[in-house]
């Protein structure tokens, strides 16, 4: 175990020896002037070709940059792209392959949920569904007493030989809106 200080002392004391192999360069052709000329000519041709190549490509590119947008615009103007997409593209397949999770991650889901709750007035529905207190239990109790009512009414009616039945409809506006 050494402390960092000791380590740095040792580091300065070390020597690094780099061993470089010197590869002897081939001296082929150095003595032959013709082969030197040929090499030079080949290099020149290559350079000229490269320059021409670049110039031509740049020129063609510039021309294409101008022509292609115009051409595409003209083409697109002439066709109904939407209709073509609708006719030829299977949109369902694209949607099926889309990564919905990422889309949903980018949606403001809480805002949307609040919007939905506002739109359908969920609090009102809950309030009304419960009648303040009502749960299924309250509804069940009401229904049971309702059927008991009818049972007792039936018995009473049969005792006093009433055949016409009862007139239980409420006064006209009892169950209509706008009644204050």
């Amino acid at each position: 175990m050494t402390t960092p200080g000791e380590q740095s002392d040792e580091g300065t004391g070390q020597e690094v020896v780099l061993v470089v192999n010197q590869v002897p360069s081939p001296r082929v052709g150095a003595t032959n002037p013709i082969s030197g000329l040929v090499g030079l000519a080949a290099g020149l041709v290559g350079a000229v070709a490269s320059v021409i190549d670049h110039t031509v490509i740049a020129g063609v590119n510039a021309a294409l940059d101008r022509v292609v947008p115009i051409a595409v615009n003209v083409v697109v103007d002439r066709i109904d792209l939407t209709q073509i997409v609708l006719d030829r593209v299977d949109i369902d397949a694209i949607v099926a392959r889309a990564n919905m999770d990422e889309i949903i991650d980018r949606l403001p889901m809480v805002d949307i949920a609040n919007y939905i709750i506002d739109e359908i007035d969920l609090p009102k529905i809950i309030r009304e569904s419960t009648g303040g207190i009502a749960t299924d239990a309250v509804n069940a109790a009401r229904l049971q007493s309702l059927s008991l009512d009818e049972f007792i009414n039936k018995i009473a009616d049969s005792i006093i030989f009433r055949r016409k039945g009862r007139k239980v409809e409420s006064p006209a506006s009892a169950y209509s809106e706008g009644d204050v």
Partner: protein
Amino acid sequence: MTSFEKFRQQLAAGEVRDLAQVTIPEKAKSKQGHRSGIVTRAIAVAIDISVTIVVMLINYGLLWLFLLLIAPIHLFEMPEASWFFFAGFVLLWAYWTAAWALSGRTLGNHLMGLQVVDYKGKRLSWPLSALRSIFSMVFPIGLLWVVFSPTNRSIQDTILRTSVVHNWSVTLNDPFVRE
């Protein structure tokens, strides 16, 4: 599936009429607005009386505690039970009067889905409500007439031309919930 746009249009056109109706059980929908029978009404009354009794018991306890803490020991003496009976009577009378005049519903009515209305189907006026309330309390047996009445009315209902109808949704005719 209904889109928001469609829903709004339906709501504007009045096609979606009453959201409260959605939540009433199918079996009970046809009974809405009909006069209630004896069992439902008796349960509602029993609930109201139970609430009154509980309130009076709490009052009794509080008074006992109050006297225990405040009054000198030789004066410590609870009032007679008949006073509490009388106080409970007055309390129930006031409660029924206010509840029927304000919303047509007491707590018992709320639980059983009932509403008290006059001969036009509107909420009772304060005098009528007070009258019906005191009448119901001094002559409770009049409720039994519901069993034989051809229109499901108690003696009180018959004389004062009131009705107790099923109304399971709270919003309608209810000033406390009206938007």
